[in-house]
């Protein structure tokens, strides 16, 4: 760690992993409720479990992005954060706000939470992913502004690298588009139209800039490839992201009351959205193949390559599967959407946050990389979580295809709940695979405790091992 203030990232990463665990536990509860409908009813109804599942995901990814920014921005800017104390203060505010919100979800009926927090003064609650009480949303804006001040000030007063500038553009976009969460007209079409300005322009827009810059940073550090090459790739990837992704928003405007021409704009542009993800895959493998050093942190490299592949599969391929409007006419709002959502979020955003955590946490603990044993555990967790996510996606896709056929495509369409009974086998398989994911997560967390007990690997040991001298790192050569 070159600058002491980078260390604030540690708090963010630890909290992110804690919320990740909460997300998975509530995901398993929901998965079981899909097949045992009265599980925990009425104590934790499905909608509450789902709010915790999705909101914990959003908050922990934001924590991960913030941690990533606090870690990499000083290193790129070649100076300490302008206000490390502010980063720490905002962390605690964010964490307490998130915890209170989750406690509110779990222990107060949602309508009671709306009353307690004065939702009628500025109604923003009760919309998918934006369920947080208005006061929590205001808190998010305050934390985001303080964060942007800290990061922006550090970037603008330090060395300006492409990685930092792209990250800053992404983070500013994140904050700006979140403001549409406060616009909630009675007109349902307008409500939905601008709701997507938060949701789509985040995950298929500015978040990809954040993803790209974090990936570029990790690859520069672990491969030693010339920065110029990496930066050129980064510009091309994010250019394609926004060129396809902004008008690609149109794939959400097919059936919500908006004009039919969106079926053309949305289909054509969103059909190109896989391109930047494919380029990201080519980019990551190219950089690793052209590496000029052998970084001892193999686990971080695995996450970086993994995110490039899985983002392409989840966001690119599974997105394309149902993005053309004649297809989407049948698949809109089915388990196909759920399948895509799971692998896209895991591949693009979960894995990039785990990649930067994997790279940065050992360094913040004073090691170049974790011990061999810890890395092996972490790589096991990578494969368990990644393979189980592939199968979760496949099972949900199978459920979705059957659902589309039975409920929408056949000559004798069946009722929603009857269809749900017919496809229950796939929900069971998804739940069992979810348990495997949980095992992967437990191994992941365990690997940190193993790492803290053992001396880490160093570049010198790796180079020595590669030269044929049997060093302590011989096994990984």
């Amino acid at each position, binding site marked *: 760690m070159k600058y002491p203030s980078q260390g604030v990232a540690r708090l963010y990463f630890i909290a992110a992993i804690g919320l990740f665990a909460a997300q998975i536990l509530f995901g398993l509860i929901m998965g079981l409720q899909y097949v045992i409908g*009265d599980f925990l*009813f009425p104590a934790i109804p499905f909608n509450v479990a789902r709010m915790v599942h999705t909101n914990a995901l959003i908050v922990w990814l934001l924590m991960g992005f913030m941690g990533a920014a606090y870690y990499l921005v000083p290193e790129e800017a070649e100076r300490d954060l302008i206000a490390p104390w502010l980063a720490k203060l905002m962390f605690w505010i964010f964490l307490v706000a998130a915890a209170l919100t989750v406690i509110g979800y779990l222990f107060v009926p*949602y309508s009671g939470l709306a009353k307690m927090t004065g939702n009628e003064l500025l109604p923003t609650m009760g*919309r998918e992913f934006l369920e947080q009480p208005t006061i929590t949303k205001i808190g998010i804006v305050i934390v985001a502004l303080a964060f942007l001040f800290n990061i922006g000030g550090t970037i603008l007063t330090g060395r300006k690298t492409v990685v930092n500038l792209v990250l800053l553009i992404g983070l500013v976009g994140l904050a700006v588009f979140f403001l549409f969460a406060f616009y909630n007209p*009675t007109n349902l079409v307008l409500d939905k139209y601008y709701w997507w300005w938060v949701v789509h322009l985040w995950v298929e827009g500015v978040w990809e800039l954040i993803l790209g810059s974090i990936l570029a940073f990790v690859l520069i550090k672990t491969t030693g490839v010339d920065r110029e090459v990496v930066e050129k790739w980064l510009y*091309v990837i994010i250019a394609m992201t926004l*060129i396809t992704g902004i008008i690609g928003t149109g794939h959400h405007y097919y059936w919500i*009351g908006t004009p039919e021409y969106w079926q053309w704009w949305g289909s054509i542009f969103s059909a190109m959205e896989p391109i930047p993800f494919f380029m990201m895959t080519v980019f990551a493998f190219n950089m690793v193949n052209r590496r000029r050093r052998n970084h001892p942190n193999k686990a971080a490299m695995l996450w970086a390559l993994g995110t490039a592949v899985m983002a392409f599969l989840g966001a690119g391929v599974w997105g394309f599967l149902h993005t053309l409007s004649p297809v989407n006419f049948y698949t809109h*709002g089915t388990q196909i959407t759920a399948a895509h959502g799971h692998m896209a979020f895991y591949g693009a955003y979960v894995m990039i946050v785990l990649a930067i955590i994997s790279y940065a946490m050992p360094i913040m603990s004073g090691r170049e990389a974790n011990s061999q044993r810890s890395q092996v555990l972490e790589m096991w967790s990578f494969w368990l979580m990644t393979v189980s996510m592939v199968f979760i996606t496949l099972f949900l896709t199978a459920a979705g295809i059957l659902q589309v056929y039975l409920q*929408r495509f056949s000559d004798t369409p069946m009722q929603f709940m009857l269809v749900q009974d017919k496809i229950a086998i796939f929900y069971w398989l998804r739940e069992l695979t979810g348990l495997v994911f949980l095992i992967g997560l437990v191994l992941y967390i365990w690997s940190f405790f193993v790492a803290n007990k053992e001396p880490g690997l160093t570049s010198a040991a790796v180079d020595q091992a590669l030269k044929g001298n049997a060093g302590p790192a011989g096994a990984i050569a």
Partner: protein
Amino acid sequence: MAQTFTKTMARNIFYGGSVFFFLLFLALTFDTSMALPDRDRRELLDPTTERGQQIAHGKALWEENNCIGCHSLLGEGAYFAPELGNVYVRFGNNTEAIKAFIQSRPAEGIPGRRSMPQFNFAPEELEAIAQFLKYASEINTAGWPPNKQG
């Protein structure tokens, strides 16, 4: 990438492309805003009418009870419970049937099965929700969903 393609060119494509397509998106948004009054049934929402107030109240109740946490509305939301954008049509164009269904949910659920919670809505709240769902069903959604099962 070949040396003839420089980082500066890549940067210019990024800035130029992003700005161009964002402006195009704003232009399409403007055109959509002009077209929406003929599609989104905003005339029903007039807050000086009883129906307009009911729909607004119904949407607030929809949100404050997190209905979207289980149901989808025009295909967006959760996929745990039926689509409600066309529930008015599915229930035979009948707001009374919607109200009766919501009222009849058992407080302790149904053993082994998914069941909607009992929200204990007052009669005027039930009417507001039903009016909101009726309004949702009348939006011009380009023919979606494919059939009344949603």
